[in-house]
């Protein structure tokens, strides 16, 4: 029973990691940048949602505000990193880290360092089966459904719409795309905004269980990155599977070893995956470019 419960909890938290991983993968695909500021961006958007909630807004209004703020923040972040796009990878890493530190500091200035609680949309009491209570609540179900919806929507966007096609073209062959009339930089901005919206959703979904504070999303960034790497950083479906696998693995680590070693567990998973399949479990084989 304990195992079943840990599995259910793992699927619920894994779907959130998958959403964070999706946000990272979308940006990596288009600009070859790992957006380490994602942790800070989802923290800020969740604070926006928190503030709306404090002023009497409903859960759904707060969620919408967070998504909107995410879009704006993502577009602004793209403008910030544009000078280092295509440059040496570490310069871009450092710029996104700078943005992360800055966002954390600004949030600390406004809200202080003490994490605030965030109420979920649905009950967090587990479902009852017979007289045993599962470690899976309506709130978890909502999380799962929301992430699945977003994943499907993204797949439809990329596979079935002209905008999605333009985004893929701008990511994979920017020169050719530009020649064919795609406004590449505008498309990249749109891609970052989209990624940040997914991140913002993940932030609001995870907020009830980790609280909202300037540093509480650091671990989510680590988990999202790990999930993205498991999936190969390049593949949205890989990110989703990676997120679920990581969620399960960490749920067992948390249940059988203790919740304080979860982040180190993620590190172990990350290192093991990178040792065995440096390009992720789902990537096609390819050489390192010289």
């Amino acid at each position, binding site marked *: 029973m304990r195992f079943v419960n840990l599995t259910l909890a793992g699927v619920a938290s894994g779907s959130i990691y998958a959403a964070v991983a999706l946000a990272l993968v979308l940006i990596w695909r288009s600009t070859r*940048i*790992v957006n*380490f500021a994602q942790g800070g961006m989802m923290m800020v958007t969740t604070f926006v949602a928190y503030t709306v909630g404090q002023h009497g807004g409903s859960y759904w209004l707060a969620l919408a505000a967070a998504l909107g703020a995410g879009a704006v923040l993502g577009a602004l972040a793209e403008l*910030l990193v544009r*000078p*280092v796009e295509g*440059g*040496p*990878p*570490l*310069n*871009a*890493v*450092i*710029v996104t*880290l*700078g*943005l*992360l*530190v*800055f*966002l*954390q*500091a*600004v949030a*600390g*200035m*406004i*809200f*202080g*360092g003490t994490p605030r609680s965030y109420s979920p949309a649905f009950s967090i009491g587990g479902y009852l089966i017979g007289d045993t209570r599962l470690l899976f609540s309506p709130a978890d179900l909502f999380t799962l459904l929301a992430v699945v919806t977003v994943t499907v929507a993204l797949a439809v966007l990329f596979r079935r719409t002209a905008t999605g096609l333009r985004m893929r073209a701008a990511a994979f062959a920017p020169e050719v795309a530009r020649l064919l009339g795609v406004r590449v930089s505008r498309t990249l901005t749109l891609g970052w905004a989209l990624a940040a919206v997914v991140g913002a959703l993940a932030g609001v979904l995870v907020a009830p269980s980790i609280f909202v504070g*300037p*540093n509480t999303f*650091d*671990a989510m*960034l*680590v988990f999202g*990155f*790990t999930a993205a*790497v498991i999936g190969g950083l390049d593949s949205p479906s890989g990110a989703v599977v990676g997120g679920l696998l990581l969620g399960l693995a960490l749920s067992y680590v948390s249940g059988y070893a*203790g919740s*304080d*070693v*979860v*982040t*180190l*567990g*993620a*590190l172990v998973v*990350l*290192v093991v995956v*990178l*040792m065995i399949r*440096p390009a992720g479990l789902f990537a096609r084989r390819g050489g390192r470019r*010289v």
Partner: protein
Amino acid sequence: MPILRLTLLRHLGWAVAGLVGLYLLTSNVEPYRDLQIATIAYTAIAAAGLTLLTGTSGQISLGQGAFMAVGAYTTAVLLEHRPEWPLGLVVLLSTVAAAVVGALVGAAAARLRGPYLAGATLAFAVGLPALADYRGLRHVLGGANGLVVAQPPPPLSLGETFPLERWQSWIAGCCLVITLFLLANLQRSRMGRNMRAVRDDEIAAALSGVDVARTQVLAFVVSATCGGLAGALLAVVNGLAAPGAFPLALSLSLLTAVILGGLGSLAGAVYGATVLVLVPGWLNNLAESLGVARNVYANLPLALYGVVLVVVMIGFPHGLQGGVRRVARWLRPDGSARSRDGNASRADVTRVTTVPGTESDSVLRGGPDGD
């Protein structure tokens, strides 16, 4: 002066000058300043290690703060359970402990590149301090409240009224001078050249007979060792080792110090660390006189570091020390005799990388380094 061309003698000269300067400086200031000097010293040690890793060897690490935690906790635990051991031995053992952890992490890190390495060390920095609260270790490491460290008093031979803070600044300062001396020699040694070769072009370095993985692991170990020493000194100076002292922000501020000082420059690491320690104090005073809320001024330095990281990376990729160097070159009449980017020590590496000049597009490659 031909004798100054001997690298070792020149570095020894700098070390002696540093020790004399430290003595004069610490003897003429009040205890609070002594404490600041000690803080600058251990921050500079951590930054110098990171500068070797990121600037010279080209590997990024967001985990320097976690190595400091290893050093600090080892010191705290040893001083608690073995109070009769001399402080020097405790600090040495803490440094060794960090080096061992560094070797483990470094062995994994040597296979990772760029953003992957950044992500893995990020996980290390976020995950390690949480171990203190792990239920199997809580009784040893003191949980979230940390461990109180009994601060070793100054020896009686210095007089009974000798201030504790000055003694601490002497310990930390001497450690800093020794660290810088060793790192400066390392940078100019064969190993340092190998590191720069690996940084500039791994494949060319490997073809020239450099063992890339070994060089990268060694750089990681050296950097972790510096972090461990810095952490041990932090525990002694602050009298506390707690998880809250090693947040991700610590690792990121050390990265800021290194970048502010110009990647790869040890002198820059010292400037960067000085800025890192002094700026919060100044902002504090400024904010108090302006009557700004506590939340705001407590976070102002961090906001500033973020801005610095972004602005320096986009605008001034050679950092503060790069600027100083440029002015010095401009003032020196024989500047044209040196190689075009004013960096004679890199000439041997440039030959390996085949296309001189192409490195200047990258901070991590183009940052002037050497002594």
